[in-house]
């Protein structure tokens, strides 16, 4: 991409900024990153992993001395969010893997986030402590209690500075409301409620109440034999607190209005694209299953990700998407093999940039793709250690589908399907992206001139 003179859209050059995680070739499964999320200001970046841990990075203040460093992200807090549990009644192990993290908007000095595994959602408070009280009357400096009768003078304890300590405390635990596995959580724009969705149900919670939740969607059939569809993702509208969407394994999206009924089984809008008969195969339904749904920041569009494409839908048009982007169409001829090795069930996420002009999603071989909605240009980039020199510009990658392979291209059969980029995040206002590649977190920024 080159900056064009007089063009409205200046193309972005992406550069390597940082990588977090070990260099070891042997990956501990617990270290595999399972979710990535910036907070609302972009100051904090949270990751969750399969071992149930949450790591929060904080962007350092930009210094005038080193303008090219552009605010790096350093570890701010690490804590164990979920532990493995054993359900004795069903003889089932409940995985501690963090499925999703969602930040709450900041309302005071502390930060709050929701983290969830398959069954339990937790509200965590992350706060700083940089002062401690000194000069107690009833205990001495070592903490030993003083004899009250020996005290002749009273003083007011004072706060003295101490080394910064960041503590994470679980403030709420929302448990026992999901029979099936939680795939999504979404904070409502009222900041008082949030929803959690599993395969068949969606529950609405109030942050203050942990022992009750309202069931707002239930697609479980009376007879389980009739089950043909599951919920795959759900999200609240960014501005309208009564509106949310959920996607299904059949490639449909339903928009619901909570004002119409307490149980939102009847959708207000139903988004589905008619099937293209020329692309029909045994795997058509499987690849149509939506793995992620995201509202645009404006609230006017929704974006969905299925196995081979990303689609943008206008809320006012239900019968087809307004834009469809091919992520890796060269896999269409490999579907049987991908079905055999279960890759066809991989759940890729998708994200909007801050201005809703560019969308990003992951692929295999540690590739990730960006689509510019205005210029209709797209690029494939790679998250790899080889491209990890500081401020090195990422070179676009290309997959060769057959015939003559050019020097820098990679053929479809050489792709490494074990290196999949399922989770990515985009800073809310700047061109900074976080890309999770197995156990490594890559941070890329646009080039500063």
């Amino acid at each position, binding site marked *: 991409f080159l900056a064009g003179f007089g063009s409205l859209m200046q193309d972005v050059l992406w550069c390597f900024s940082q990588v977090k995680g070990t260099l070891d070739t042997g990956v501990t*499964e617990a270290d595999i990153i399972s979710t990535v999320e910036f907070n609302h200001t972009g100051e904090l970046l949270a990751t969750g992993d*399969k071992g149930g841990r949450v790591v929060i990075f904080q962007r350092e203040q930009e210094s005038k001395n080193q303008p090219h460093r552009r605010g790096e992200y350093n570890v701010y807090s690490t804590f164990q969010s979920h532990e493995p*549990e054993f359900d*004795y*009644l069903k*003889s*089932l*192990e409940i995985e*501690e893997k963090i499925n999703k993290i969602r930040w709450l908007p900041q309302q005071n000095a502390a930060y709050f986030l929701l983290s969830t595994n398959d069954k339990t959602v937790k509200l965590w408070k992350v706060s700083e402590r940089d002062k401690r009280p000194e000069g107690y009357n009833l205990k001495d400096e070592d903490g030993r209690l003083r004899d009250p009768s020996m005290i002749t003078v009273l003083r007011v304890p004072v706060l003295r500075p101490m080394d910064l300590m960041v503590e994470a*405390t*679980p*403030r*709420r*635990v929302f*448990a*026992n*409301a*999901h*029979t*099936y*596995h939680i795939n999504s959580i979404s904070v409502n724009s009222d900041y008082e409620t949030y929803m959690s969705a599993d*395969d*068949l*149900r969606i529950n609405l919670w109030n942050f203050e*109440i*942990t*022992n*009750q939740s*309202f*069931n707002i969607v*239930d697609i*479980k059939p*009376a*007879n*389980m*034999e009739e*089950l*043909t*569809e*599951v919920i*795959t993702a759900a999200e609240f509208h960014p501005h309208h607190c009564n509106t949310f969407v959920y996607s299904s*394994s059949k490639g449909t999206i339903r928009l619901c209005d909570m004002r119409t*009924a*307490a*149980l939102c*089984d009847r959708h207000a809008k139903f988004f589905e694209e008619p099937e293209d008969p020329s692309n029909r195969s*045994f*795997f058509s*339904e*499987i690849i149509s*299953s939506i793995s992620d749904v995201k509202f645009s920041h404006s609230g006017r569009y929704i974006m969905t990700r299925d196995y081979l494409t990303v689609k943008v839908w206008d809320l006012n048009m239900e019968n087809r998407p307004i834009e469809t982007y091919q992520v890796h169409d060269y896999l269409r*001829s*490999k*579907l*049987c*093999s991908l*079905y*055999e*090795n279960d890759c066809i*069930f991989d759940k890729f996420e998708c994200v909007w940039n801050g201005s809703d002009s560019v969308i990003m999603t992951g692929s295999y071989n540690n590739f990730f793709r960006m689509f510019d909605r205005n210029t209709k240009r797209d690029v494939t980039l790679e998250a790899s250690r080889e491209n990890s020199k500081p401020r090195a510009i990422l070179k676009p990658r290309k997959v060769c589908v057959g015939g003559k392979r050019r020097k820098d291209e990679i053929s479809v059969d050489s792709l490494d399907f074990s290196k999949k980029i399922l989770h990515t995040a985009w800073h809310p206002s700047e061109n900074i992206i976080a890309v999770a590649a197995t156990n490594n977190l890559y941070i890329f920024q646009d080039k500063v001139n």
Partner: protein
Amino acid sequence: MLGRGLKRKLSDYEENMAGLSSAFDSSRSLPYPLKRQLVLNMCLTKLQTYKMLVEPNLHRSVLIANTVRQIQEEMRQESNQQPVNICPGVAPASHSYAGMESPGISLQLPSGVGQQESHCCDLRSVEDPIENSLLIVSDDDMSSAISSILKDLDFVEDISPPTCLVPTGDDQPKFPENTGLKLEDDRQDLKGAECVFGSFEISNSTSYLKDLAIDDIFEDIDTSMYDSDFCCPPLMPPRSPSLATEEPLKTFPSCNSSSANNIQICRTDLSELDHIMEILVGS
């Protein structure tokens, strides 16, 4: 983390399947019925593998079952349209091949399929390795196979039937019709009919457990670190008394609360716990 499920060792069969699926992808001359058969076999293999997992993935199971149903439907329509099959000597739909037990399909390794040779499509020679590896499945056996495989899946106990708690006073304290119906059908479902995902429901003998707040039994697990300064509002049952009997409330009493309501609920639960223990030990 505990390992879960069955660790698949690379076996001849799996290597064969991997080879078959690349053949599917790369070969343009593979006849459609053969491709369809291959996909069907892969689906059934997967479902059977999930059967051995402690907790099968519902999303995947649904997708695979839908694919099987789709193929099944296609094959049914074909057999309805063509009473005489293009492959001589093959009577579709009702054939039962040796080596296959009803209701379950025992997926024989390729070596056991030698007897299938004479029944395969005329487009391929008998020695074709792909053909020889496929297990030809009849329609009836497929239906019963799906049902039995999935019925045998380890169940997921559904302790949270839908409750439509009325949030505000001005709403009518009544449930939408379908909620009540669902509860009833849930009970019927428990009778264990030939249901594909019936195994995801709890079985008959534990149906009474549905009415309990089972989690009270495990109150002592994992709770010590949580704040006690958080006060949960006292648990209020829905205003209409009939609702309390028809629909189990999703109540999750706070372990640290000392309100009278909770003590009462704990006492009730203890007696129910005794009841459960009696039955479990007695049976």
